């Protein structure tokens, strides 16, 4: 157990020093495995693990969903989504902020990435909000926070990676993300409502659109709705496996981007290259994470912890609260995906024997990741907004995201107290 804790500390040290997380976990995992079993078995285990992970047809779901998001991004859907949401909600107080949340949810539903959603929506939604006299705090807080919906609303890359790490049904994980994702979106709208109720000058009323305009604008985003319904409907109805849904989604997005005349051969190649590189980055962390997890299992850390927790008669809720605390601390210094890769193999081994549903746990972990994306000092989405809008003060964005952070924490509490919410739709999969 001591060796495992030393290993964990070295990984954190190397990662904080700037060594790529995948290489940190790989180097420490293999070296300490060799410390226990010798170099030959450690190196053999390394080659075998990497080969098995890389040449695994089940993992093709990862590049395919990334590719689906990339095609949709290239199809320049974000503006149309935003205009469509604005036509319905713009006339309300804070209407542009509501529209941003709706459009982010729509974009997230097909892009699968929080940071990509935040980056895109910052470019799309910030300029009109500022033109309409929205306060920078509300506008920037809204775009940075609404981006986090990408991690929860399926198809979600973090849920996918959780599924790979813990060998859970990816389709079930996606379905489980729907209700908490919608709940989080609604909670963000509550945050906007509260802000404009308290400070009406921060979110002035916009124009009311006629129904003919609304229907015309809705017609431009049919593709997003169609792809989402096809992918999720196929998964939910049991027609597709996750891989098949991903390929249908990627193929559908490609056709959709072509139909919008947004995809040349050059952008097609760029999309594939971007998706390949993202896949390479994630797989490197997967290699490191799996090798480190192998060492952790060999060291006996998880067994010792499980035995200790059972001896202390801790309940599942108490363990979850401790995990929340660890995630808040780690989320203050680490980016979400790295945090997940480092902790999930250990936490999953601890919580599973306590009878905690692993699909629910996946949604919980991803929600914790999302909260980490907007809480100081390392909120990645906050920095993304700052990068795109350098004239904004970092403090302004953090202050603006506070009401959204508060509602995300409320959502987390609801998820912990009512775990059935995440599993509401899952049993129907069978």
């Amino acid at each position: 157990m001591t060796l495992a804790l030393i290993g964990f500390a070295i990984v954190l040290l190397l990662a904080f020093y700037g060594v790529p997380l995948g290489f940190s976990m790989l180097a420490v995992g293999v070296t300490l495995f060799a410390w226990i079993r010798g170099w030959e078995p450690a190196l053999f285990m390394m080659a075998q693990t990497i080969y098995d992970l890389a040449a695994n047809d089940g993992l093709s779901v990862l590049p395919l969903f990334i590719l689906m998001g990339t095609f949709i991004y290239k199809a320049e859907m974000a503006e149309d989504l935003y205009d469509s949401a604005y036509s319905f909600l713009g006339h309300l107080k804070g209407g542009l902020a509501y529209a941003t949340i709706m459009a982010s949810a729509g974009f997230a539903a097909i892009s699968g990435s929080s940071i990509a959603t935040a980056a895109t929506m910052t470019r799309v939604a910030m300029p009109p909000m500022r033109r309409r006299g929205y306060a920078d705090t509300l506008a920037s807080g809204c775009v940075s926070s609404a981006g986090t919906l990408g991690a929860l609303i399926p198809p979600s890359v973090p849920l996918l990676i959780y599924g790979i790490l813990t060998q859970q049904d990816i389709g079930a994980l996606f379905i489980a993300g729907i209700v908490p994702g919608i709940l989080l979106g609604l909670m963000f709208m509550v945050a906007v409502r509260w802000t404009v109720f308290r400070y009406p000058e921060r979110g002035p009323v916009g124009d009311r659109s006629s129904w003919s305009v609304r229907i015309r604008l809705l017609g431009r985003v049919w593709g997003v709705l169609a792809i989402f319904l096809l992918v999720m409907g196929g998964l939910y109805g049991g027609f597709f496996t996750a891989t098949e849904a991903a390929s249908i989604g990627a193929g559908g997005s490609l056709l959709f981007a072509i139909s919008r005349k947004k995809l040349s051969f050059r952008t097609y190649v760029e999309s594939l290259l971007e998706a390949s590189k993202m896949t390479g980055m994630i797989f490197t962390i997967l290699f490191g994470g799996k090798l480190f997890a192998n060492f952790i299992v060999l060291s006996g850390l998880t067994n010792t912890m499980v035995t200790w927790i059972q001896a202390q008669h801790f309940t599942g809720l108490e363990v979850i609260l401790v995990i929340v605390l660890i995630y808040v601390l780690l989320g203050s210094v680490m980016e979400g995906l790295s945090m997940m890769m480092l902790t999930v193999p250990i936490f999953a081994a601890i919580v599973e024997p306590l009878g905690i549903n692993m699909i629910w746990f996946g949604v919980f972990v991803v929600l914790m990741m999302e909260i980490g994306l907007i809480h100081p000092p390392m909120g990645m989405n906050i920095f993304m907004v700052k990068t795109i809008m350098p004239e904004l003060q970092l403090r302004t964005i953090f202050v603006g995201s506070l009401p959204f952070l508060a509602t995300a924490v409320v959502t987390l509490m609801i998820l912990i107290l009512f775990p059935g919410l995440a599993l509401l739709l899952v049993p129907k999969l069978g």
Partner: protein
Amino acid sequence: MSPARPEGGLPGPERSMDKGAAVSMANKVLVFLCVVSLSFIMGLTFCDVFMRYWFARPITGSAEMISFAIAIVVFSSFPLVTATEQHITVSILHGRLGAKGAWIQRLVILLISLLCCATIGRQLLLSGHMLLQDKQYTMVLHLPQGYLSYFMGTLSCVAALAVLFLLVLHLGLCANPGAGRSAT
């Protein structure tokens, strides 16, 4: 992988042109492999779904072809990501170290990256040799697993070479006395 830009004490223009051409060629080959393999995965899975549901005839060995293609995507992009230093990092020290501290930090990062890439490459090459010796083939299409392991190992070695190149550039900067003095 974009051709490395000369900085500080770097090789002369003729040598860097040769290296630039070699790097550019390697880059094109890797990009080609990524694009073709990922298109193949998308196309094959898409067709497989249609064949399975509409004609009740799934494509034979599609899972094996996809498993080979995904390994090709992962390991073709690995040198590209490694050479451009795009791997996911935590880096809370970014911008907080002095010039000398940052120089040492990058040296450590490159050394560990080199060690990891080279070790992965060596082991996958050895594993490929063993798989070929043991005549390990896939179940349906009888694809030789050893050659895939060789491919993965070779591209890991290419990634190691790319890191070695970056390391040489980094140390070249150190050899420049002016740069060294200004750094301190």
